């Protein structure tokens, strides 16, 4: 068991390293000069030279990467040229918003996926099942940004129920906060819900075919108890893994959804970093998002190993 976890950790390390390399060098490939951007209106050659030295930009790229990665390991991601604040602080400030958005989308996704997937599996090859299948396909096909736009059109502009965008922090009241988060959460969660629903359905079908279910049925365990206690519990194990992979989708989707709904989260930040050519911020955001993805999947794998005794730890 511990050997397995250790092994997973060891695989994650080179990947995290690779992420840092890619984030660093891709950003270096973006045309433009960091110091120029940093100084902006205060540009002058002497100051630029001082800054280049300070940030080691007069050194070779490899040395620069070395310097950067060392400070990253110490928790220092550099200073944003846009706001002059430490990148790590900006990321931490914005993390809760993206986190909340992600949690709401996952909750929404599970709320539709599990009942719908289970029912579809139970009523296999009936109109209910086909309906669920269609929802599954539709959910992964509809662009989240269009869904978001449509919700604004209907719920904000037409019905005036919800604000069309903007963010109210939790500290201003849960209800006020939820009002700004519910539409983005649904827009982002729909596709995750569709994928999870398909997963739940097929995994449930598999479980229903297992011997122990047939046994339980033979023993006279009532149907609903059987499904909810034995079936679903086992069926949900692979669903957890799917959610881990979907975390990547959620992080990416948050870029566009946060933009539409003006939520100051990590996704919007990444976009701002790109449009403003804020290199250290972009590097930091890329590193942060990709590492988050790796770590979430690592966690999911470990949880999976813990809850599923069938896994082989070789």
């Amino acid at each position, binding site marked *: 068991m511990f050997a397995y976890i250790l092994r997973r950790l060891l695989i994650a390390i080179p990947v995290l390293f690779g992420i840092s390399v890619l984030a660093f060098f891709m950003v270096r490939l973006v045309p433009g000069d960091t110091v120029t951007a940093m100084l902006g*209106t205060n*540009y002058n050659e002497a100051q630029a030279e001082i800054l280049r030295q300070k940030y080691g930009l007069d050194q070779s790229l490899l040395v620069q990467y070395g310097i950067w990665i060392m400070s990253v390991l110490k928790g220092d991601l550099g200073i944003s040229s846009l706001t002059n604040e430490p990148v790590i602080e900006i990321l931490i400030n914005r993390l809760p918003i993206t986190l909340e958005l992600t949690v709401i989308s996952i909750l929404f996704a599970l709320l539709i996926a599990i009942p719908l997937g289970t029912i579809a599996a139970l009523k296999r090859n009936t109109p209910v099942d086909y309906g669920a299948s269609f929802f599954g396909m539709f959910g992964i096909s509809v662009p989240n940004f269009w869904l978001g736009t449509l919700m604004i059109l209907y719920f*904000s*502009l037409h019905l005036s129920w919800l604000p*069309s*965008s903007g963010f109210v922090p939790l500290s201003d009241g849960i209800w006020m906060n939820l009002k700004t988060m519910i539409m983005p959460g649904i827009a982002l969660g729909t596709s995750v819900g569709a994928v999870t629903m398909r997963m739940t359905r097929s995994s449930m079908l598999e479980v229903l075919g297992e011997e122990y279910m047939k046994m339980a049925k033979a023993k006279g365990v009532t149907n609903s108890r059987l499904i909810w206690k034995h079936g679903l519990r086992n069926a949900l194990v692979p669903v957890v893994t799917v959610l881990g992979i979907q975390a990547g989708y959620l992080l990416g989707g948050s870029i566009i959804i946060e933009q539409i709904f003006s939520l100051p989260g990590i996704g919007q930040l990444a976009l701002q970093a790109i449009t403003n*050519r804020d290199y250290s911020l972009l590097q930091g955001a890329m590193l942060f998002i990709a590492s988050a993805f790796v770590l979430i999947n690592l966690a999911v794998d470990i949880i999976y190993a813990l809850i599923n005794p069938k896994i082989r730890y070789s």
Partner: protein
Amino acid sequence: MKRLVGLFGVVLLLLLAACSGNQGSTSENEEKPNPNDQLESTGEPIEGGKLTIVDLNDAQGLDPHSETNAQSMHYIENMYNTLFKYKEGTYGEIEGDLVEEYEISEDGKVYTFTLHEGVKFHNGDDLTSKDVKYSIERIVEQLVRAPQFEDVESIETPDDKTVIVNLKKPVAPFLTFLAYPMNAIVNQTVVEENGGKLDNADAGSGPFQLVHWKKDQEMVLDKFTDYFKEGLPYLDQVTWKAVPDETSRTTAIRNKEIDIILQLSPKDIQLLSKSEDLTVEPVTGTYWEYIGLNVTAGPLKEKAVRQAIATAIDREAMNKSVKFGQATILTGGPIPEGHWADAKLDTYSKSDIEKAKSLLKEAGYEDGFNITLKVGQNKAQVDAAQVVKQQLQPIGIDVEILQQEDSIFFDALGKKDFEMSIVGWVGFVDPDEFLYNIFHTEEVWNQQGYSNPEVDRLLEEGRETADQDERFEIYKKAQSIIVDEAPMVFLYANQHASAIQKGVHGFDVNPTVSTKSLENTWIDR
């Protein structure tokens, strides 16, 4: 070096222009009742209350001397004072702010200012003539607006209340420069406490003081109780929010979540005018948009080609589809109607495809050519680019639109790395501010690479001439040459409009986009 600095300056100033886009303009300004009369006639000011005001984007920083965009200016100007300020309800006039009395010598080279008594900074320090001297020197050091003070020879401070500025030569718009809200007087002690930077600090003496600024969320200002203007401000608190999305801004003001929206788009002017709970106030703006033609290379080197483009463009149609017909088209120079320096030229009165074709032929381009048009993220300008492309097709010019991220776009403009561009410029107040920086040879913001000795001479003359009538003639002549040679195709001057919740009084929608009138604003509800 200075030139390069300026390039970045223009990048940011144009950014401000781009950000503050989406306004329209009207030619009926003078016929409208003065909004102030209207608002102030509703009764005695009431003290107290909180006000929420919304702008398009968040500020970049809070340092008055190094920031350049309109959003930063709005945050900053309410925390600081300037020596002079724009007179509310007017366009182009100024009055004293920190200055109680002033004197200008006969030769126009010595300015003597007497400051108000008992002005305090937010930290309790007294504001003295030394702070004024320090601030002007700091503005020059920070480079962004150094050109405005390049003719300052020396500053004397004979006593705490008196400042004497000696100029090398007369500078006609000097007081206007001093009224620019970002040329604020800062507290030296606070600057030094913050390591020379004011990006997140408050070193002001203005009507409101900084409580907190959470980037991209809100900026909260509290009433400064020791403000030197007796009884002001009325409001207890002002909250600024940046809401880039037009729809959510209009929804929020309808739902009474906010009190004022700045910089309404033409579409929203139309939409919100219908609401009974809101006052929508449009005034002639100083923000105008143009097609920039890089005169240094390619077909655009030819004057006739540039004239052909200026002739082919149908500004009326463009105004209609891009600005809902709410801007004022510019068929002559950039200074709009209603300004004393409006030259009333009507060179390109309407689109004339035949004439444009013959001009192209004259230049040897009768078969047309391909060209790239760069544009940033500003929606109205992206829209305008699409119209330009359509309008130039009939004369054989095939335009390819290249939309870039703002930072890249403005950088390219500064480096003259473009053929055609669509962007805007905030003229502000003095004709010098409208023209000098962008048309004078080698001047830092002359992105088109335009150079004409005659224009240079006129612009220099205008800068040193005090008499308004003489200046009118000078600028008229300069504008007619510029319009004829067409390094820019002037499109339209925008309207500047705000939506204000009923019950909010005393807020002045100023062509300069300044929001300093918040110190006189009060709420009755």
